[in-house]
């Protein structure tokens, strides 16, 4: 990326030689991103990230529809980039159906394709279901849902921000029409992402201007960012198998060690159908906010809910949709592992977390009340 902030400063839209050098770099990056998801290079639209890709897919598809009324289907566990876009659609007079997810022990946090089928109406123009959930890591039955959408002749968008680079992705095999990815989720830079648009699918741009990205997203290309996502995609593709096996074993060790050492821990989301790097755990009696801060002070960075909703009072909409009671949702933490995570990191996490959870539980007024109530009974 660095040369494109310095000596190769050219604008990829320019005719001159430095511009052509930038254009070539963008093209090479497009090849790498396309290869990561099994697409053709000309099906890739670079964006400022996953959120813009999601917005472009949703509003772009609705705007391109010729139906007199439009209806969009999505699920209760989507990222806010989808859900808040759908709220805006409602304000614009477009109908939206939010399909629930399964809440039972097995298949917790998984969408039932039959629910999607039932929601489809003649005016439905788009179904949008994420590939892997960002909080639970649960992987959705995208191929089945894509078949349901295709049978009804409805466009299908998949937010694959959380799974790209973590599990193999093939847009042809999945059968999706549109698919969003974001670079920083696979070790690339923040502020760059891409939308796959299947050849022949019409979307109306959200930003108007020049002819960049084949008239699907106007604006001067973010050349350093695009070079970054290209390199990240290339590395992710090469290292995917090795990374995911290693990260999965680290994640599983983290989970089993914590389950051994801390009472009343629960794993949220179907454990057998998850991306390998995510672990969502509830520590009832230990409020998520205090837990998050206490662990951060010890050098262990994790999340409650999604980074994009930090500071909100409400427990995660994803965990509530997956059937968690409010208190369990409030005491949940998401651990994300990645390529740089080491055995030593896991050892340290396993050493730190039980003591912190114990301290927070001991000092929690609610926990003291609960204990007292138990004794009283």
């Amino acid at each position, binding site marked *: 990326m660095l040369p494109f902030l310095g000596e190769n400063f050219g604008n990829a839209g320019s005719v001159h030689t430095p511009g052509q050098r930038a254009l070539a770099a963008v093209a090479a990056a497009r090849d790498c991103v396309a290869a990561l998801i099994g697409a053709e290079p000309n099906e890739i639209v670079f964006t400022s990230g996953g959120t813009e890709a999601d917005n472009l897919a949703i509003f772009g598809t609705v705007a391109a529809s010729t139906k007199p009324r439009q209806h969009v289907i999505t699920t209760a566990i989507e990222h806010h980039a989808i859900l808040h876009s759908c709220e805006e659609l409602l304000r614009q007079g477009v109908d939206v159906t939010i399909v629930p997810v399964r809440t039972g022990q097995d298949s917790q946090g998984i969408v039932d394709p039959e629910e999607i089928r039932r929601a489809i109406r003649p005016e439905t123009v788009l179904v949008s279901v994420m590939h892997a959930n960002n909080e639970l890591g649960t992987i959705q039955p995208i191929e089945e849902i894509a078949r349901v959408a295709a049978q009804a002749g409805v466009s299908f968008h998949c937010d694959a921000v959380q799974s790209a680079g973590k599990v193999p992705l093939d847009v042809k095999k999945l059968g999706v029409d549109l698919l969003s990815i974001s670079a920083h989720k696979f070790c690339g830079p923040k502020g760059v992402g891409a939308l796959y648009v299947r050849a022949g699918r019409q979307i109306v741009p959200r930003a108007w201007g020049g002819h960049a990205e084949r008239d699907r997203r106007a604006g001067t290309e973010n050349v350093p960012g695009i070079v970054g996502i290209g390199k990240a995609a290339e590395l992710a593709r090469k290292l995917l198998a090795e990374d995911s096996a290693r990260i999965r074993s680290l994640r599983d060790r983290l989970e089993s060690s914590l389950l051994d050492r801390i009472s009343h821990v629960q794993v949220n989301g179907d454990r057998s159908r998850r991306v390998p790097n995510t672990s969502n755990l509830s520590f009832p009696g230990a409020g998520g906010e205090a837990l998050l801060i206490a662990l951060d*002070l010890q050098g262990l960075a994790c999340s409650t809910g999604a980074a994009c909703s930090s500071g909100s009072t409400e427990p995660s909409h994803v965990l509530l949709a997956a059937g968690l009671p409010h208190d369990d949702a409030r005491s949940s933490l998401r651990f994300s592992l990645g390529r740089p995570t080491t055995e030593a990191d896991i050892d340290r996490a396993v050493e730190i977390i039980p003591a912190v959870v114990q301290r927070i539980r001991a000092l929690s007024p609610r926990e003291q009340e609960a204990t007292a109530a138990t004794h009283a009974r």
Partner: protein
Amino acid sequence: MSGNPMSTIDQLESASSATAATAPTVAVAMSGGVDSSTVAAILRERGQSIVGLTMQLWNQRRLPELQGDGPRQHRCCSLDDVYDARRVADHLNIPFYVINFERVFEQTVVRPFVDDYLAGRTPIPCTRCNNDVKFEQLLVTARQIGASKIATGHYARVRFNGETNRYELLRAVDDSKDQTYFLFGLTQDQLARAEFPLGEMTKQEVRAIARRLAVPVAEKPESQEICFVPSGSYVRFIESYVQEQGTASDANARKLGEPGDMVTTFGEILGRHNGLHNYTVGQRSGLGVAVGRPIYVVALDRETNRLIVGHDSELRGSVCEVRNINWISFEPPATPVGARVRIRNRHEPAEAEITPLGDTTARVAFRQPQRAITPGQAAVFYSGEQVLGGGWIV
């Protein structure tokens, strides 16, 4: 969870002096204002291991009709204040977190504030916030994340008395800034874990320290208003809030803004009022009647929805009952206690005898009649610089 496993606190401690490294961590409640920012700077300079916490108490996007046109300056929990607090923490190179207490703040401060006004009382939300949010919820969180004490920008002092084995609350050295009136509810446990570094300083000294340590908000103006009430109009806040939420009881909702009679203490009807929540005992302006001499609010009668008005002399009273008393310097006394009693912020404490009626209730008899003894306000008992305790005027 990769990279250097050394914690921020570890780094701070290794950067500090050897003695401070063994001292337990203190959480600083940072509002983004100059006082609490300076507290953080002072403790940091002393080499104390600290963590900055900002409470997100109120969502300013709520009740948008209250926002007005003017610039929203220096209001609690505005994005600007959180930004300021973060900027100060960054300047001091200390760990910093924003904690969301909107729910508990609404339950324990905002709703009771509204309900008090609707019940004809004049509440003090800051005291509730100190008792139930800052030195309760925030202290719990501070301890959960490994801090042993909490430091705030209050102008007050805490001292341990070895003879009585109790923590004592003392007035600030700068009497013009003293905030003990709002802190009388702190329990022994809370006082034991409170640090008020500014209690020993004048405001001028605080500003000077802020400038010397280049605290980014050193020149920021002071906020005087109730943090969640924009532009000082508590009446409009109550009306908007009730409209959004409804009130604790339907009776209150029915009475909000319901006009009623304005009568003298002799029962003579002088006119109409436009809802009792618009008035506070002792208030002069806004009565809307001209009778040739100053007329004041003497009482709010919720039962009959009447506003009782009268002359200044009728505002004066010598006795009031106080409940939910928190005794600080000693256990609840069995016999009368002489003290100087403050009945509102900035009121000059007046000599009185406090006769206990129970562990947490008492009758306060002033030597001289006091103007506008107002239900809902606090009566705080002073002996010299010491706060003996205090409670709520019935």
